[in-house]
């Protein structure tokens, strides 16, 4: 086929988007919704992941040291702790620090602390940060193996909740994506079928004058791809606007932010390019594929 012929078919496809704007718009909407839902699931998933990562950072193991250990031994323990694989940061917390903290945390027991006076019964200790939360149990048992350790405590509660949440979200997201894959294919199949249906006479006439299947199909292919491309762009714009306004909304909720940690919500600017590209590629691909599969099925008049 000559280049002029190819150009003619591509032009036809682009023109068809306009000529059949109604059906094109229907396909556009279907693709847009599908892309948005899948996109939202994926972005939500990444955010939860980022939160889990962020809260892992905050997650500490508290190490209390036997009060028999002297200054030198305490420093030694600090070095030993830092040497353990997976430990990212080790901070010393003197028993005075611990006492002050307690005073703030439990004002209703002020009396106890008052009665104790300067005779601080607490012990010195370390706060150990861990780079990967999954290694915590392993690290705890290693710390327990050291000498002069009085008590080791890790409060993983909230992280565990988040991890379970991630599992659930992963499953739900997979279910949503699978369901949407089916639904959007059905919908695209429908719109393509309908658009072929409205043009079935036209297609039949084309076949009577000797047009090959691929000659008839190419404009549909181009049409689907162009429509899908615009769906991608539309989905991107909506995602952008929605994400940013949700981001603003959330960052205003001080209480929620205290739990989640502001820095753990992904900034849209850092994923903008990937979102745009994924949407456009997915949109064009599904649009083109949908057209091809369903024209193949229905064009054989």
């Amino acid at each position, binding site marked *: *086929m*000559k280049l*002029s*012929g190819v150009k*003619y078919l591509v032009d036809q496809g682009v023109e068809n988007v306009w*000529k059949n704007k109604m059906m094109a718009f229907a396909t556009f909407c279907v693709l847009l919704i599908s892309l948005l839902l899948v996109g939202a699931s994926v972005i939500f998933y990444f955010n939860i992941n980022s939160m889990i990562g962020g809260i892992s950072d905050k997650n500490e193991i508290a190490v209390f040291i036997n009060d028999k250990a002297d200054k030198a031994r305490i420093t030694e323990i600090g070095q030993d702790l830092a040497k353990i694989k997976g430990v990212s940061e080790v901070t010393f917390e003197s028993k005075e620090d611990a006492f002050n903290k307690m005073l703030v945390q439990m004002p209703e027991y002020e009396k106890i602390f008052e009665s104790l006076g300067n005779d601080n019964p607490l012990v010195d200790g370390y706060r150990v940060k861990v780079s990967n939360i999954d290694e915590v149990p392993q690290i705890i048992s290693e710390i327990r193996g050291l000498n002069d350790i009085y008590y080791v405590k890790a409060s993983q509660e909230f992280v565990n909740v988040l991890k379970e949440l991630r599992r659930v979200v992963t499953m739900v997201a997979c279910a949503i994506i699978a369901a949407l894959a089916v639904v959007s294919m059905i919908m695209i199949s429908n719109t393509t079928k309908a658009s072929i249906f409205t*043009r079935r*006479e*036209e297609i*039949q*006439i*084309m*076949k*009577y*004058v*000797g*047009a*090959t*299947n691929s*000659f008839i199909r190419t404009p549909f292919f181009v049409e689907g791809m162009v429509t899908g491309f615009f769906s991608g762009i539309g989905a991107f714009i909506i995602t952008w606007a929605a994400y940013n306004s949700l981001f603003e909304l959330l960052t205003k909720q001080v209480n929620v932010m205290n739990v989640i940690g502001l820095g753990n919500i992904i900034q849209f600017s850092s994923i903008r390019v990937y979102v745009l590209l994924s949407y456009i590629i997915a949109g064009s691909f599904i649009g083109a594929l949908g057209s091809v599969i369903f024209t193949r099925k229905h064009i*054989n008049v």
Partner: protein
Amino acid sequence: MVELKNVSVTYSSGVDALNNVSLKINDGDFAFVVGSSGAGKSTMIKLLLKEINATSGVVTVNGYNLNKMKRRQIPEFRRTLGFVFQDFRLIPSMTVYENIAFVLRVIDAPKKYIRKRVPYVISLVGLQAKSNSYPDELSGGEKQRVAIARALVNDPKLIIADEPTGNIDPELSYEIVELLKGINDCGTTILMVTHEHDLVRHFGGRIINITDGEIVFDEVIGGINEA
């Protein structure tokens, strides 16, 4: 060359439209097909285009055995013929010019040739003024003439026309048949269904009469102008 051997067609609704028909039309022939309403004329035409398949019998057109033809051969086969349907079948989303040019685009004809050939055949049927009109904007007779122009444009070996003058006034009808006769003189085989007995009497030639799905008359008669 067109050949039907013991061909029958029964529609899925149970109607026997053609009944053991045998027919041979040689290259360069000009044949009129006549017969009453519902006799099976259009059915025969649809058969030759492979729009429908014969229930039994063998159909051969331009050297292709339509019963045994592979799917992907159909486009290549249809390019060897031109047709005029009883219901015109113009593409509603294309102008007159585009409708006719489309036939040439399909065979990937050079742009230059398309630009020269299409206006020429449009002028043959006297529709220069309607080049850029859509089918919806044409009168019945004008649509029919576009269909005729489309059948001529790619210089086919065989032209099959189903009542090409059904919506055209008598004077124009004569002109159109003259045109087809001219094309026939250059070697193109022509098969034309008509119910205008005046035309047949005037031009004469081979007359095939179908009645109730059977050929009841198939002879060459002299035209008035030749007589």
